[in-house]
Structure formats: structure tokens, C-alpha cells
């Protein structure tokens, strides 16, 4: 069996999670908890194993032939439009399926522990399996349209999973928000596909070689429309506002969305469609600046958030900004490198946050945590490793990728976006350190003696709570309050700290089914950098991806010394951020409602906390003038024009009927008269006109 024969079997990778989802939907209820979870994890695991086989088979081919298209069938045979359902196996797609399925498998195992006891346990794993399948189809697609199937698939699954606890109003709203916001970007993707078909006559990725010949204006339009789709999916400014709200979903879903299956789709699309971006210089500039600005703005918002998951959400937006910054300056392999390392450390952070929430009676408010390393040793170990990785401390994974992005931007002479990235690196160091110190170090603020809040006012708890059976003080918390409106687990900036929920009992470490995947992922976050250390011969990922981006002019590092100097600068900047945060939070915070960052930043703190009031403004805009505009359109255009046309036709027919009815007099003799007149007229016609 040759490597190419083996590569023909690539369809097994998406098939495995599809089978898993089907099995779980049909038999899930009967399989129950935890068997359904293990089955879901197993199918994703098999998918990962097969991805490794695909990697080995592709690696077997000579470097310049590492691109294999497997056409399954012709999906749409319509004249000039021949859309084939096919998969493209090349270094880019294999890189994605490897980390998507691998990390998703770990997250699935983690979720077995996290979702324990949930009423829709098997449904959860059916959705997540489908999520993975959609993402794999997205990255493996051999044409824009096949990618689009996966693109919409992840959109659907994110909606289902963010709204997984749909009994809670805020979760249902967040799911809709994610779906609608990403849909705004999807229309750009669709129009871009129309344009591509118009210009190239094919939607296959193999046809993109001609992208350079279509004129820079059209190329810019295509690239920007594709980028609009990427902005929506990857939560970049100005369509980022769905991602923080997506925290309403179960934490493993957040981990999936952020690390593996959703937000990296935009980065993938831009990398895959890079010939259009290269053909249009302007689009590249736009991508770089949107990325840089998003990296900076999202990082500032993350500085003061009180919610453990919201900090991570803004952090993801910021890190995705880095990736787009890299794509925009033409450092594609650096962007993909950061996608992979980010998947490692952000996956760790989210699983760690999940473990913290799990062990803390489902509390997400960092202001009432503190000193948790005593109680969650493994979680804190993994979390600290991921913290150092994302803050860019060598030799952890994040350092290598972030540093590569920044130095590529610098050596490409894009000093503006380089400065944005550098400031964002400082802020990243700060907000992650603040989070780690608020959660794991400093003073313990979770204890309240005696439990002063009556059970009815206690913080509501999401399903999938404690796994250690009923514990004193916690059991009461699990009762769902009647008022769903107030039962959001996430804490927005400006809200008072949540009432203490633990009572007199202590936080606890999660079971091994959660800590083992967490520690594995944490290990990846530590060592992930070896994938591409920027030294001659061992930058494996760059070499591996080289065939995909061969048509791109590489950015050369002028000299080794300059590279090291630049790295030193970015590390120093990150360390400054860490240092400031440590000096502010070393002893914890004096009271739950007093956050040094908020107090020291003053007005800026409030501005950051409210995310520049962007979400509120959009909400006001949509619910105020937007609603009035819609109502006006509904009243005038729909009511008068559309309905008017429909009703008008009916009215016209009716009036005609009423008029013509008069002719029917019921008098036989008048009918006879009309017949006579008609006959006479006909005769006249025959004699005068025809007979001539």
C-alpha cells in the first residue's frame, strides 16, 4: 500500500466523529452516564489516531508532492459549476486535523468528569462529536464550498452547545448571539465564493494558482469578503462580541471553541486562501491592522474582568488578533504555529478554569477565590504552566510562536502593528498574572463563616456540578432558582461580587478523569514550542508548511543577533507586565469588591471593564434606532409595498369581478341582444377587413 493509497482513506477522519454523533443521538439515552462520554471520546480519539496515520503517509512523500486530493463524488454537477465533494490533504490541513482531533479528544475525556450528572449528558457528547466532525470537514475540504459546509457546521454546533443549558435565558440568548453574529460574516464568505466562481470558474483550491491574474481590485474584494467571514468566525473586531457571551456554555465547550474547533477556522481560511490576499496588498494591510488593533483592545478589556472565563475569552480574542497580525504581514507559518501553541495553552487554561469552577461550587467570580493552589494542586500546576506559556516566558510554548510573529512583523518593516503587538504582549502578561494570582495565590476569599446567605439567594449553579455526592452547604446551592433572569453564572464587570457559596467547606480538586487530560494538555503547553524553534534545521513546522506557502516571499531575519535582541525585547515587555501584576496582587485583594487594577486605572478601568461600551452601544443601536428602522421598514415597505402589491392584485381582481357582474342581468333577451350584436360585429369584421 503506497502512501497515496493510504491518503485516499482520509475520509475516515471526519467519518469517525460523525459515527460517534449518530450513535450517541440514537442510543445515547440508553448508554447513559458515563458510557456515552467514553464512546464520544473514543471516536474522536480514533479520528486523532487516523490523523497521525495521515501525517505519517504525507510525510512519506517528497516535500514538493505533499498535496493529495481525494474526490469522493461530484456533489453539484451543474453546467460550468462542478463542485466535487473532496478532501485536500496537505501539510496545512494535516496540521489542523492533528491538533483539532488531539485536543478535542482530551477535552472530551475532561468533559466526562465535568458534565457528570447532567440531564442531557449523552446529547452533549453527540453535539461535541458533530462539532469536531464539522471542523475536520472545514479544514480538509478541497474547495471553498466543502469548507463552507464545515464552516456552517461549526456555526450550528456552537449555537447548540453555547445554548446547551437553554433553560437559562442568558445561555439561550448567547447562543443566538453567536449564531447571528457569525452569520454576518458568513455572508461575506458567500459573496466571496460567488466572485471567485465568476473570476476563476471553479471553487477548488487548486484553481487558486490563477489568483494573481484576476486584477488587484477584484482580488482585494474577494480577500476582504473572505476576511469578513474570518472576522465573524474568529471573533475579531468589530464582530468579536459573541465570544465573551459564549462563556454561557459549559466550560469544555469554551475549551473546544477556543482551542480546537471554532475560532481558528478564520485563521485557517485566510491561510488557505492566501493567494487572493497576496494578489492584493491592501487586503494584507487590513488583516494586519485589524489583527493588531484587536490584539490590543481585547487585551485591555481582559485587564479588569472579574469572571475567570471572561478574562480567558478576551485573551482568546487578543491572541487571535496576533494570528491575524501574522497573516497580514505574510508570516503564515508563524500564524499557524501560534494557532497550535494557542490551542495547547488556551485549552489548558479553559480546562483549568473548568476544574476550578467545578471544585468551587460552580462559582466563576475570581474575586471570591484566592489561594486555591492549596486545594487544587494539579489544576494550579497546569494553569501556571499555561500562564507562563501565554505570557511569553521562555521556553514555554507561547514564547516561541508569539516571538516569531512579532519578529516577523518587525523584519517586514510593519512597525505600527509591531508596536500594537508589543503593547498587547505587556497587557497579556498583566492580565494573565492577575488571573493566576486572584485564583491560585494571594489571600483566600472563598470562606464565609457562618454561611450567611440563605439558600434561595445563593449563587445559582449550573448543571454538572459537584461529583462527590451531596456535600453540606453545596446541596442547597444546586437548587435552581425560579428567576432564570438572574441566574447567569458569568460575572460582568461592575456587578457586585457574588455571595459566597462554599460556606464552611473547602474547594476540592477534580477527579482524575479531569486532571489527567488537564496535565497532558499542560505538558503540551510547556513543550509545544519545540514544533518550530527558529533555528536553522529545527523549525519543523515552518519546513513542514513550506510547500503550502511556497508562493509567498519569506521574511528573512537579517542576522541571528538581531533576532535574539528582538526576542529579548518582547520577553522583557512580557516580564514587565507580569511584574506589575505581581506587585499589585501578590497579597491578594483586601476585599472582594476592591480590585487594584480597577482602582488604579480609574476611568480607564471602567472603560476597559465595559469593553469600551461597545456591546452596550451595539445593543442600544440595535434596540433603539435599529429597531425603529426595522419597524419603519415593516410598516412602510412590508406593510405598504409588499403587502400593498399582494392585496392590490386581489383588490383589482375583485373590483373587476364586481364590475363585470353587472353584465349578467339575468334577462334572456339582453343576452340574445349581445349575441346578435356580437354576430353582427363578427360579420362586419369578416366583410370589411378579412374579405378585402
Amino acid at each position, binding site marked *: 500500500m503506497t502512501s497515496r493509497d493510504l491518503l485516499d482513506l482520509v475520509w475516515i477522519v471526519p467519518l469517525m466523529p460523525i459515527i460517534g454523533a449518530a450513535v450517541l443521538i440514537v442510543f445515547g439515552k440508553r448508554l447513559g452516564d458515563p458510557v456515552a462520554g467514553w464512546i464520544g471520546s473514543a471516536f474522536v480519539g480514533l479520528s486523532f489516531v487516523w490523523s497521525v496515520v495521515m501525517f505519517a503517509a504525507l510525510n512519506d512523500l517528497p516535500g514538493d508532492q505533499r498535496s493529495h486530493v481525494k474526490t469522493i463524488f461530484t456533489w453539484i454537477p451543474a453546467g460550468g459549476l462542478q463542485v466535487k465533494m473532496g478532501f485536500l490533504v496537505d501539510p496545512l490541513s494535516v496540521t489542523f486535523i492533528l491538533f483539532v482531533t488531539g485536543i478535542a479528544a482530551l477535552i472530551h475525556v475532561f468533559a466526562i468528569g465535568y458534565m457528570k450528572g447532567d440531564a442531557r449528558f449523552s446529547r452533549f457528547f453527540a453535539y461535541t462529536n458533530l462539532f469536531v466532525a464539522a471542523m475536520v470537514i472545514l479544514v480538509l475540504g478541497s474547495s471553498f464550498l466543502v469548507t463552507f459546509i464545515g464552516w456552517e457546521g461549526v456555526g450550528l454546533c456552537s449555537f447548540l452547545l453555547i445554548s446547551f443549558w437553554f433553560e437559562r435565558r442568558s445561555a439561550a440568548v448567547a447562543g443566538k448571539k453567536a449564531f447571528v453574529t457569525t452569520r454576518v460574516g458568513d455572508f461575506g464568505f458567500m459573496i466571496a465564493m460567488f466572485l471567485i466562481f465568476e473570476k476563476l470558474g471553479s471553487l477548488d483550491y487548486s484553481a487558486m494558482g490563477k489568483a494573481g491574474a484576476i486584477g488587484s481590485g477584484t482580488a482585494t474584494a474577494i480577500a476582504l469578503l473572505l476576511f469578513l467571514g474570518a472576522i465573524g468566525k474568529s471573533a475579531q473586531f468589530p464582530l468579536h462580541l459573541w465570544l465573551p457571551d459564549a462563556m454561557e456554555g459549559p466550560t469544555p465547550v469554551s475549551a473546544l471553541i477556543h482551542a480546537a474547533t471554532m475560532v481558528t477556522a478564520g485563521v485557517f481560511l485566510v491561510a488557505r486562501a492566501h493567494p487572493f490576499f497576496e494578489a492584493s496588498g491592501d487586503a494584507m494591510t487590513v488583516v494586519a491592522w485589524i489583527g493588531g488593533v484587536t490584539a490590543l483592545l481585547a487585551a485591555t478589556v481582559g485587564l479588569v474582568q472579574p469572571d475567570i472565563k471572561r478574562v480567558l475569552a478576551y485573551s482568546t480574542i487578543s491572541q487571535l488578533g496576533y494570528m491575524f497580525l501574522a497573516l497580514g504581514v505574510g508570516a503564515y507559518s508563524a500564524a499557524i504555529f501560534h494557532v497550535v501553541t494557542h490551542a495547547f495553552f488556551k485549552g489548558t487554561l479553559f480546562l483549568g478554569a473548568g476544574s476550578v469552577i467545578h471544585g468551587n461550587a460552580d462559582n466563576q467570580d475570581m474575586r471570591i477565590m484566592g489561594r486555591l493552589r492549596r486545594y487544587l494542586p494539579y489544576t494550579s500546576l497546569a494553569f501556571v504552566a499555561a500562564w507562563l506559556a501565554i505570557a511569553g516566558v521562555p521556553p514555554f510554548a507561547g514564547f516561541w510562536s508569539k516571538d516569531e510573529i512579532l519578529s516577523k512583523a518587525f523584519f517586514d518593516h510593519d512597525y505600527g502593528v509591531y508596536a500594537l503587538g508589543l503593547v498587547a504582549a505587556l497587557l497579556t502578561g498583566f492580565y494573565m498574572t492577575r488571573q493566576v494570582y486572584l485564583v491560585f495565590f494571594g489571600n483566600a476569599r472563598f470562606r464565609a463563616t457562618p454561611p450567611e446567605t440563605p439558600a434561595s439567594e445563593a449563587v445559582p449553579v449550573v448543571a454538572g456540578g459537584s461529583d462527590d455526592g451531596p456535600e453540606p452547604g453545596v446541596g442547597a446551592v444546586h437548587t435552581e432558582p425560579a428567576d432564570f433572569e438572574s441566574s447567569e453564572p458569568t460575572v460582568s464587570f461592575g456587578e457586585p461580587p457574588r455571595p459566597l457559596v462554599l460556606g464552611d467547606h473547602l474547594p476540592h480538586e477534580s477527579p482524575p478523569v479531569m486532571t489527567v487530560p488537564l496535565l497532558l494538555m499542560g505538558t503540551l503547553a510547556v513543550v509545544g514550542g519545540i514544533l518550530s524553534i527558529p533555528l536553522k534545521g529545527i523549525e519543523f513546522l515552518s519546513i513542514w508548511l513550506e510547500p503550502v506557502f511556497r508562493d509567498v516571499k519569506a521574511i528573512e531575519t537579517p542576522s541571528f543577533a538581531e533576532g535574539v535582541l528582538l526576542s529579548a525585547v518582547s520577553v522583557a515587555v512580557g516580564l514587565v507586565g507580569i511584574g506589575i501584576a505581581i506587585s499589585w496582587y501578590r497579597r491578594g485583594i483586601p476585599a472582594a469588591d476592591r480590585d487594584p487594577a480597577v482602582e488604579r486605572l480609574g476611568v480607564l478601568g471602567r472603560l476597559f471593564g465595559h469593553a469600551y461600551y461597545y456591546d452596550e452601544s451595539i445593543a442600544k443601536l440595535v434596540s433603539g434606532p435599529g429597531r425603529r428602522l426595522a419597524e419603519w421598514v415593516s410598516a412602510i415597505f412590508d406593510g405598504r409595498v409588499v403587502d400593498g402589491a399582494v392585496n392590490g392584485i386581489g383588490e383589482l381582481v375583485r373590483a373587476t369581478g364586481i364590475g363585470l357582474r353587472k353584465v349578467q*342581468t339575468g334577462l334572456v*333577451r339582453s343576452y340574445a341582444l349581445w349575441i346578435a350584436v356580437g354576430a353582427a360585429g363578427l360579420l362586419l369584421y369578416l366583410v370589411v377587413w378579412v374579405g378585402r
Partner: protein
Amino acid sequence: MSLGALIVTDSYYLVLAAVLFTIGAVGLLVRRNVIVMFMCVELMLNAVNLTFVAFAHSMNDAAGQVIVFFTLVVAAAEVAIGLAIIVAIFRRRKGATADDVQALKG
């Protein structure tokens, strides 16, 4: 112009037929009695029959005469139905005035 010089050509028949048809048509339009209107219809039918026969003679084609038989058959059927309707009207109403029967007025 003596009587012996009178040669009856086909146009005489056609003129007669036209006169009969006109009488029938005008009678149909102006009279209200259903029986009289019915007779007028018969008059018009037979005027047409006369035309057919006249043309059959002048063109030396038997087809015109054949059509007359068809017309007679149809007329017989029409008489049967028409008279039945008139009888039905007489049973339900006092007279047989056409203008009184206008239940299908629009």
C-alpha cells in the same frame, strides 16, 4: 315584366332566408312571451336551413343538404328540452314572461 319572365334564381332564396332570419331575430329581442320567442328561434333556424339548401343547389354540392338534416335533428332535440323548460316554468309561475325569470342575475 310578365310573370312568365320571372326566373327564380338562388339569390331569391337567400333574400327570403335573410328576411326570415331578421324577423326571427327581431321577434326574439322584442317579444317577452317565452313561447313566441321560442317560435322565433325556430324561424331563425329554418332561415339558416333555407340558406344551406340554396347554396347546395347553386354549388351543386349535396353537403349543404346533409347539414340541414343535422340541423333538423338538433332542432328537434332543442324543441324537446325547450318545451320541457317552458312547461316547468308554467307550473311554477302564472305566466311565461322571459323577463320575470332572472334568478341568475349577477
